[in-house]
């Protein structure tokens, strides 16, 4: 039998006011295994903890029950105190007589009676507690960053600067991401490429960073500190070691009609291409779907013109297997498809574009060389209408229920830039609310209105109708004037909702990281652990976690990097000892437990088992303590009761049930 000490805390008057603490001590002392019981005003104080040490020394306690506040508050405190006193920390249980008792019950009799029962339940549990010892697992000192946009680049740079190796996996041919597609950035209006390119170069040049572009994560196994990842390096059809990036192949390529992904489909590119001029690496890829050589076997002009002999039509996908201690997910976003929004005529008129497309139109390297013109006829527009909240804040299945957060600001930016460069163009913005929380954000918006004369109208656009003369009829409401208005516009720009990049879903499955209903990765805690995934060793960077602008993304990327660095700085990880454990003698090897394990922590071995003298080879479950997080799903799935959870064992919980019901 255990020798249990019970310590009842007054918590000043927080507990003592509605629980007769002395009575709890008296009743607890009567329990068979209790050899010591006392009360103290503040158990969590130094003096309170000293009481524990003293009682352990004097009475030879083997288990401790502290009747106090929630274990979520001070369980760790008392476990440490026990450890210092020479008792295994897992021999401590807390009876929550504050949050679950004294604070909610006014009647002292009721409160005392309940506190006594809660104490008994904790005593009953401790009776069955066993010392537990945290395990250790090693940490591979290398991080993987998935996604090579500004979030991924920043995280990688920060981790690498701390002295750890980092690999970036980017699915497109170049790093840079969405930010590379932007023309200017708010609220400073500096050129996006001018601030991004140096970062890209820095990442490429960093001795600790390896960049796998045109590559995707194929398989992830392992656990925090020890992930094994298969990366598929797609065949570029170019030998990157030979390519000089001269660009002649792209000029000479006969297939030039593929839509440019980088220009959002507004311009074309050759079959052999680098997405944009500053691409890193500056090594083209051959789009095998478009390449004449691959389609017909003829052509091969790029190979002929390549002085370096870098073209390799035979190149195959390559699988690279690498170990990582931490993974940063920075998969970013895309804009939603507008197929379901017929009323905005996006699919009917070339002059209705998304804001991201406008970025390309405004950009000097874009399809119009930076000239603001209608994509249908190249004419200079006289009136541009911006529509806010297209697909954002929608509760129907067409759009997204959340606010995309960045649209108000970039629309103000676009309006301002247009008015600045082309003062003759009239700009009207239809908004529902203008949301500008951020440093210098509202000032920026006000400048658009006050200094640049952008016309903001509160009211949503109901319909955009292409007219026979090529103009667009915009029908909207002006809620402040309570009027319905019809405007003639030459271009309409839709502030299209953003959504997580579709690649995140299969990735989340591979990572066993949870995602929310909108496919954003879930953070471990929305306030206190916003850059960590609930799955240990996975960190979140950028829009994959939720909509955010560039400064926020960079800030979060840095935060994720710090968390990853914190992990990589450790040589060993201690693992939570409250893990599942299979009793080999009872295990059927049926795999039911493995089917419900969210962490893939259960595997099977065929072992020679000696079952009370019967020796036979049996398939039995083995739990990987480093992977197991202790949820207990397996323990209930297991019909024979072979699987049990240490610290919350079947018998412990049953003892608590019995103590409460007696």
């Amino acid at each position, binding site marked *: 039998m255990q020798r249990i000490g019970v310590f009842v805390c007054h918590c000043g008057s927080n507990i003592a006011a509605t629980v007769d603490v002395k009575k709890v001590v008296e009743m607890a002392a009567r329990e068979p295994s209790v050899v010591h019981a006392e009360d103290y005003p503040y158990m969590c104080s130094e003096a309170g903890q000293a009481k524990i040490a003293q009682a352990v020394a004097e009475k030879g306690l083997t288990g401790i029950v502290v009747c106090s506040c*929630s*274990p*979520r*508050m001070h369980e760790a405190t008392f476990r440490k105190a026990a450890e210092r006193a020479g008792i295994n920390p897992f021999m401590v249980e807390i009876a*929550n007589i*504050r*949050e*679950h*008792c004294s*604070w*909610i*019950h*006014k*009647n002292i009799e*009721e*409160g005392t*009676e*309940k506190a006594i*029962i*809660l104490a008994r*339940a904790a005593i009953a549990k401790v009776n069955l507690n066993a010392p537990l010892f945290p395990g250790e697992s090693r940490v591979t000192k290398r991080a993987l960053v998935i996604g090579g946009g500004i979030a991924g680049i920043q995280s990688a740079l920060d981790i690498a600067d701390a002295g750890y190796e980092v690999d970036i996996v980017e699915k497109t041919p170049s790093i840079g991401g969405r930010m590379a597609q932007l023309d200017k950035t708010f609220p400073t209006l500096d050129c996006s490429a001018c601030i991004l390119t140096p970062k890209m170069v820095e990442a490429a040049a960093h001795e600790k960073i390896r960049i796998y572009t045109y590559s995707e994560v194929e398989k992830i196994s392992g656990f925090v500190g020890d992930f094994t990842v298969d990366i598929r390096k797609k065949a570029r059809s170019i030998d990157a070691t030979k390519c000089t990036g001269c660009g002649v192949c792209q000029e000479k390529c006969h297939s030039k009609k593929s839509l440019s992904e980088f220009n959002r489909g507004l311009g074309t590119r050759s079959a052999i291409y680098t997405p944009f001029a500053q691409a890193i690496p500056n090594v083209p890829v051959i789009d095998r779907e478009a390449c004449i050589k691959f389609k017909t076997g003829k052509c091969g002009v790029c190979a002929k013109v390549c002085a370096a002999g870098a073209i390799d039509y035979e190149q195959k996908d390559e699988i690279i297997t690498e170990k990582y201690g931490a993974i940063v997910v920075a998969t970013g976003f895309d804009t939603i498809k507008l197929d379901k929004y017929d009323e905005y005529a996006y699919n009917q008129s070339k002059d209705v574009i998304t804001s991201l497309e406008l970025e390309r139109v405004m950009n000097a390297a874009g399809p119009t060389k930076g000239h603001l013109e209608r994509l249908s006829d190249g004419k200079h527009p006289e009136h541009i209408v911006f529509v806010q909240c297209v697909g954002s804040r929608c509760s129907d299945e067409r759009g997204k229920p959340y606010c995309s957060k960045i649209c108000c600001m970039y629309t103000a930016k676009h309006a301002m830039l247009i008015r600045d460069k082309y003062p003759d163009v009239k700009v009207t913005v239809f908004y529902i609310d203008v949301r500008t929380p951020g440093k210098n954000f509202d000032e920026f918006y006000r400048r658009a209105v006050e200094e640049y004369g952008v016309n903001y109208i509160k009211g949503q656009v109901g319909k955009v109708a292409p007219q026979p003369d090529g103009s667009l009829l915009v029908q909207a409401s002006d809620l402040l004037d309570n009027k319905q208005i019809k405007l003639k516009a030459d271009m309409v720009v839709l502030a299209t909702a953003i959504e997580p990049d579709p690649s995140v879903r299969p990735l989340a499955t591979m990572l*066993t*990281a*949870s995602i*929310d*209903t909108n496919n954003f990765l*879930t953070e471990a805690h929305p306030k206190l652990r916003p850059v960590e995934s*609930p*799955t240990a060793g996975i960190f979140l960077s950028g829009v994959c976690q939720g909509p955010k602008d560039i400064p926020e993304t960079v800030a979060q990327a840095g935060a994720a990097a710090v968390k990853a660095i914190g992990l990589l700085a450790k040589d060993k990880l201690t693992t939570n000892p*409250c893990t599942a454990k299979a009793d080999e003698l009872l295990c059927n090897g049926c795999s039911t437990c493995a089917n*419900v394990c*969210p962490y893939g922590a259960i595997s099977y071995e065929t072992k020679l088992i000696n079952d009370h003298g019967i020796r036979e080879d049996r398939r039995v479950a083995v739990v990987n303590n480093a992977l197991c*997080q*202790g*949820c*207990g*799903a397996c*323990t*209930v*799935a297991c019909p024979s009761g072979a699987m049990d*959870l240490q610290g*919350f064992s*079947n018998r412990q*919980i*049953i003892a*608590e*049930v*019995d103590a*409460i*019901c*007696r």
Partner: protein
Amino acid sequence: MPVNEKTGEFTPKIVAFCCNWCSYAGADLAGSSRLAYPAEVKIIRVPCSCRVNPMFILRAFEKGADGVIICGCHPGDCHYSTGNYYARRRMTLLFSMLDYLGVESGRTRVEWVSAAEGVKFSTTMNEFAAKIHELGPNVRLEDLRCKNN
């Protein structure tokens, strides 16, 4: 039948299994917000709602509990990502079986309570306790050996 000695009223025994991450924290919040609910409710902390074995529930009834409620994170919010989905199926089937055996269906309940829902925790417990009062003592699942022993 558990009876308050002074008032002579039926005072039920109610066991609440709360997952550590959401519902237990929700109960803590109810406490720190001073949102009262009957002292008849006693909480057992489990790591996840998927840790609740149907045997625990039957055991509680056998030992004289009059109501058992399981609280976990909202579907989709499980700390272990999927635990409450399994719990949901298990409990649905178990409750259906108990109903089939003629046990009053109000004696068992599952409620998803997040760490932020102190109010919901308190209202849920008040409602559940009221329901158990209405149903009276659990006779059909108790084990007579535990009575008076």
